């Protein structure tokens, strides 16, 4: 493995997930520090290219969430610079970050994902929002779940129980993006399954069961310590747990992801595991599920980050 002489963690960015990303970046830096690796945290701003050119790093750990971080853009730039980095290549990120694309590709590979429609703002405007909403409810039924087609941390996302609530939910969604993914709401156990590849192929981490204290697993529930209970491993029958692991690895593989990812699923009352979305730059905060799954499964967080960086450095640009 290469020696890690200079490590840069990318965190921040200009998306609404900036604060989460800064927390992720700080946590990765602290974990690396405990593992004996000094790293600096840099933002994706006008100073970044000079920084990376002046003293090229052994490897970069991207911890930017949302647009720029997960849509492949920053990784494309790292590729142009010839800088090795942890995680998936730009083209894979583009497919994974766009939720409808990820759903279509995973569905084509045989995974079960809630029926959905994807519509841009202009369609509602041009065809008449009320008529389009009527069609959606008639086709998908109720309840529904509305979320921006690109983005994370449940920003602009929410469940809809009645047809009358759908316009407001779509409106909230459009605050965070111009295209809405509206899918049938699946009631059940919410789980997140991390996938890590430390050189032996993608391995699923134990499923983390998410139980919000009250209401939905929204932004506050995600990032307020104590608002959500996590069970690791998830309280699922072994066969279902195995199935969630299979789905996470399948999603990782089908989308061509690399090093690490996190797949979010719902397990319904019948034990069917539904693929919802996959994250190429999963949260690394104190309340995020991937570090929790790593620690619980015998992968110390800091040492795992070091391994991923060593792998990236050895791989090269």
């Amino acid at each position, binding site marked *: 493995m290469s020696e890690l002489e200079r490590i840069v963690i990318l965190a*921040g960015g*200009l*998306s*609404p*997930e*900036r*604060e*989460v990303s*800064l927390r992720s970046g700080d946590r990765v830096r602290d974990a690396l520090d405990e593992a004996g690796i000094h790293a600096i945290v840099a*933002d994706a*701003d006008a100073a970044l290219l000079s920084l990376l050119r002046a003293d090229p790093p052994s490897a970069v750990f991207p911890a930017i969430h949302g647009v720029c971080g997960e849509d492949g853009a920053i990784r494309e730039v790292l590729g142009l610079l010839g800088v090795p980095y942890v995680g998936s290549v730009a083209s894979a990120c583009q497919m994974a970050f766009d939720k409808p694309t990820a759903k279509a590709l995973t569905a084509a590979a045989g995974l079960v994902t809630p029926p959905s429609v994807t519509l841009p*703002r202009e369609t*509602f*405007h041009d065809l008449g*929002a009320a008529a389009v909403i009527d069609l959606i409810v008639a086709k998908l039924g109720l309840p529904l779940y509305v979320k921006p087609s690109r983005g994370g*941390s449940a*920003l*602009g996302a929410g469940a809809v129980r009645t047809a009358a609530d759908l*316009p*407001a939910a*779509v*409106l*909230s969604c*459009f*605050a*965070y993006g111009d295209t809405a993914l509206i899918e049938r709401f699946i009631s059940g156990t919410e789980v997140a399954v991390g996938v890590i590849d430390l050189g032996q192929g993608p391995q699923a981490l134990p499923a983390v*069961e998410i*139980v919000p204290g009250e209401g939905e697993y929204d*932004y*506050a529930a*995600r*990032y*307020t*310590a*104590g*608002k*959500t*209970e*996590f*069970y*690791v*491993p*998830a*309280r*699922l*029958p*072994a*066969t279902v*747990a195995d199935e969630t692991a299979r789905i996470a690895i399948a999603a990782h593989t089908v989308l061509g992801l690399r090093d690490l990812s996190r797949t979010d699923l719902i397990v319904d009352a019948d034990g069917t595991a539904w693929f919802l979305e996959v994250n190429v730059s999963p949260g690394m905060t*104190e*309340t995020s599920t991937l570090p*929790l799954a790593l620690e619980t499964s015998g992968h110390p967080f800091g040492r795992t980050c070091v391994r991923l960086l060593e792998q990236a450095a050895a791989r090269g640009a």
Partner: protein
Amino acid sequence: MTPGQQPISQPQRIDRYVGQYAERAVGMVASEIRALFAVAARPEIVSLAGGSPYVAALPLDAVGDMIGQLIADQGATALQYCTAQGDAGLRERICDVMALEQIRAHPDEVVVTVGSQQALDLMARIFIDPGDVVLVEAPSYVGALGAFASYQADMVHVAMDEDGLIPEALEEAIRRVAATGRQAKFLYTVPNFHNPAGVTLAVGRRHRILDICHRAGLLVVEDNPYGLLGFDGDPMRALRADDTDGVVYLGTFSKTFAAGVRVGWAVAPAAIREKLILAAESAVLCHSSFAQLTVREYLNTQPWQEQVKDFRELYRERRDATLGALARMMPPECGWTRPAGGFYVWLRLPGGINAKAMLPRAISSRVAYVPGTGFYADGSGSQYARLCYSLPAPDRISEGVRRLAAVIETEVQLRDDFGPAPVPSKGHISKS
């Protein structure tokens, strides 16, 4: 373990003390709005959000020399504990500052605080039991609402118009509270260049407000951070200048000198003052001697009144840039206040537009503001936004307003497509 089952796992809540917090801490959670403000700190965003003074206009070299001299000459005092009431020399100078607003006070009547925010906290600490009523303007300063909420106050808003607090609305609010068998503990008001509304309590209303409160036995908390930053004429006469028994006056050096020194003060009737001192002692033992002596030396050795004039001119230019850009670019359904001082314009959005819901789109368009709901304790104010012009240069202000106008246009189209935003507006600033 049951065959076919995973090992039984215990719940992990990350925070092991989750069940032990006080009830007042339950609402302290991560918020999408705070997350968006993290983006607003980036230079690509024109931030009309945070109410920060433009401290870069200070003579920083001279202040640096002054602080060096302070440590050289009085280091052993500046780096030592002091009394909870605050440095006597600073309190003398505070009386000189208040004299500009025609307040006659003795240094013994002054209590130094950590900005005026601590004075708000101390007032809440000594007056408010859970469920007690406090009257606040509609809208009101978010920091005050937060301080009162942390002591579980029941805040009742009183309407304002472009001349500030409406006397009839105050009388009505007092009556309404009395009808529930309660009496408000105090009225909290920002009479000059209001944060967030930008309006000023008209001269003709001031005696009337004091009279109403006097008759009702209602203490007035007069918060005056911007009083010396008026753009026209001399500073307004403070409410405290006309009623020393019925008004607690709060002042700060955050806007006239530097927010970072965190030095403010309260002037209160004797009995209240004694409780404020004891409360301050239990909260912080004493305030920073270094910060207090820095302010004292600044007032003693630097041309601070000239500096305040410079600040006034700077903020006047930025106010003009804001009002000019709003007039040129805002959609016709919008309205806004026209501040005669201070930092803020209160923007009314077209009907059915929710400023909080619009904020993510604004941030994506690289402009930031503070949604109006933050300035209400009852969830209203959704149709309003606070624009702060103190920090960006005039050309950046114009660019920010241009971006905001485009965002509002898009919101209007969305409203027309989907119907009004779900939260109804209850803002109380009348149409301008």
